[in-house]
């Protein structure tokens, strides 16, 4: 338990970008579009925010609004970039997996290319945000230590988005329609819902959230854009499936990744973990995911029409 309390705030820091990106993936897949391009969209978001923030910080050192402008730009850029995927997979009925791969490739190559051309360097560093304790709440025993100490404002933003997303998905008009499009778009279409529009929305949300995820990595623990997010986008997809396409499931899955990865990273520093072979700790999250997928495979909750292009009028 002590161990958990010790590493929790940092595990959360790692979890949050994963969570928001997986949540983006959730919207896309629930609307019926597989988005394997999350990785690339994160990179795009990281790039856009890094560029914005670094430019603004030249003249506005240490001002917090700069960060938020950067984050906003990342969200918009991610959303914009995801249109490429939306167009290919919704209008052109392209293979969604392949289109996603193309998005990843374009994002990786194009951002580095632009970074080189704009700043003369593939890397862009910025000054990020800092952690704070939440007054009052931090004094709650255990919970205070776990959740209300050492938190980033972006964490609360994402938690807020998680709550809103859950609400939207299950309680609102949009949510009902979105889920219908992922399950059986013909039904949505017959009910007068514009399936294309809903799917566009799903993909755009996934782009926006991925962009946000990329920006959060930048402003919290990385502080530097380097043209890659080291497979986190793919991990987010795994978390989405692991979490059975449900917001709370995703929360649990990403938290698991966050904690497991953090333990593996810091094991050398922690005496009680130092004797476990590091290989075992490094493999732990991936092996557990595989096992979890096997266990959940029986009751898969995948949206039934995910990955299937919708053609109006097709029977």
């Amino acid at each position, binding site marked *: 338990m002590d161990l958990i309390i*010790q*590493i929790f*705030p*940092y595990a959360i*820091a*790692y979890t949050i970008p994963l969570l928001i990106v997986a949540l983006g993936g959730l919207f896309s897949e629930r609307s019926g579009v597989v988005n394997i391009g999350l990785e690339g969209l994160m990179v795009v978001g990281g790039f856009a925010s890094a560029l914005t923030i670094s430019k603004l910080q030249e003249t506005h*050192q*240490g001002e917090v609004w700069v960060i938020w402008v950067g984050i906003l730009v990342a969200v918009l850029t991610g959303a914009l970039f995801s249109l490429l995927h939306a167009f290919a997979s919704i209008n052109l009925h392209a293979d969604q997996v392949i289109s996603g791969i193309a998005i990843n490739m374009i994002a990786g190559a194009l951002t580095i290319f632009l970074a080189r051309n704009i700043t003369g*360097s*593939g*890397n862009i*560093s910025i*000054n*990020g945000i*800092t*952690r*704070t*304790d939440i007054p009052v709440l931090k004094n709650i025993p255990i919970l205070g230590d776990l959740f209300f100490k050492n938190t980033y404002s972006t964490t609360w933003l994402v938690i807020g988005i998680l709550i809103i997303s859950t609400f939207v998905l299950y309680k609102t008009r949009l949510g009902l329609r979105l889920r219908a499009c992922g399950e059986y778009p013909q039904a949505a279409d017959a009910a007068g819902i514009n399936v294309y529009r809903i799917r566009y929305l799903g993909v755009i949300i996934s782009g926006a959230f991925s962009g946000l995820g990329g920006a959060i*990595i930048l402003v*919290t*623990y*990385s*502080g*530097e854009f*380097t043209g890659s997010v*080291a497979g986190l986008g793919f991990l987010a997809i795994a978390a989405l499936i692991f979490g059975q396409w449900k917001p709370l499931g995703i929360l649990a899955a990403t938290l698991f990744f966050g904690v497991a*990865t*953090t333990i593996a*990273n*810091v094991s*050398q*520093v*922690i*005496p009680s973990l*130092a004797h476990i072979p*590091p290989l075992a700790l490094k493999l732990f999250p991936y092996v557990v995911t595989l096992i979890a997928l096997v266990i959940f495979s029986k009751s898969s909750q995948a949206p039934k029409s995910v990955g299937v292009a919708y053609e109006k009028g097709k029977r």
Partner: protein
Amino acid sequence: ACGKGGDTKDAKGAFKVGMVTDSGTIDDKSFNQGTWEGIQAGAKDLGFNLKQDTKYLKPAGETEADYLKEIGNLNDAGFQFIITPGYKFETAINKAQDKYKDDKFVIIDGTPHTAKDFTPNVKDNTVSIFFAEHEAGYLAGIATAVQLKTGDVGFIGGMEIPAVQKYNWGFQQGIKYANEKLGTSISLKANNVVYSGSFTDKAAGQQIAAQMYDRGVKAIFTAAGGVGQGAITEAKNRVASGKEVWVVGVDVDQYADGVYKDNKSIILTSAMKGVAKAASDMVKAEKDKKFPGGQTLTYDAKNDGIGLPKENPNLSSDTITKVNDVFNKIKSGEIVVASERGSLIK
């Protein structure tokens, strides 16, 4: 542009300097960046046209073949003075120095040798440059210990490559010396000496640093590229909320990376090695026709090839005095810093 294999020098006497990066990028805040900055500085001093006369290429992979390919590209494009940073280039340069006899090569942190035989094979058109990272680490250890006086410190390395290991070992010896001779009481626990296993995983850097700081470590010496950036991020974060923690930078003066406000930085000091100096030295030497081909150069305390930054706003003058004192003793040979692990931690 330029023709194939043309003159090494143009009318102004300028020649073209090329560089091949290793796995890191040109802005790695480490030796790739140092080398490139050195080339630029040297070339600028000599009045080269920077855009045309200097060039770096990034290989597609990290194999000998990838490296040789880029060396060939530079050669064919008329860049016949080629600098490569990193021990990974050892076998590639070993071949290149024979293959491109008209070209000059500088290999930093390594020496040409064949795959089987590790005996150095520095041909007349090649210079091999080493740095005494252990001495730099030693000085950083002294500075850290003397400045902090008591408490825990830590070390985060990237992968276990020679340069990183030498920083680590030197740092440990420096702390020990300060504790024994300079009246400090700094402890460096085995758990706080960590190789993260990566030069890029910033999340790991942040997390490891956080754990160390949470366990009372006051300063962390990082020799870990991007992982170090993660540690710096963590330190800035803590300082912003009023705690006092430090990072000791590596390779170059990282002060600017650690600035959190009003030009205040969490970088206590940096264990520097003069990669840039070495690169610019070589460019100038070639220009003066004094290229020390066939030699293996060591940049160490004796020739000011390593050291701490000139400006150390976070070190007291007392600390600086003591560090300088030790520096001189290393120069004079009174103190010998081991470049081997021996009985040290990791």
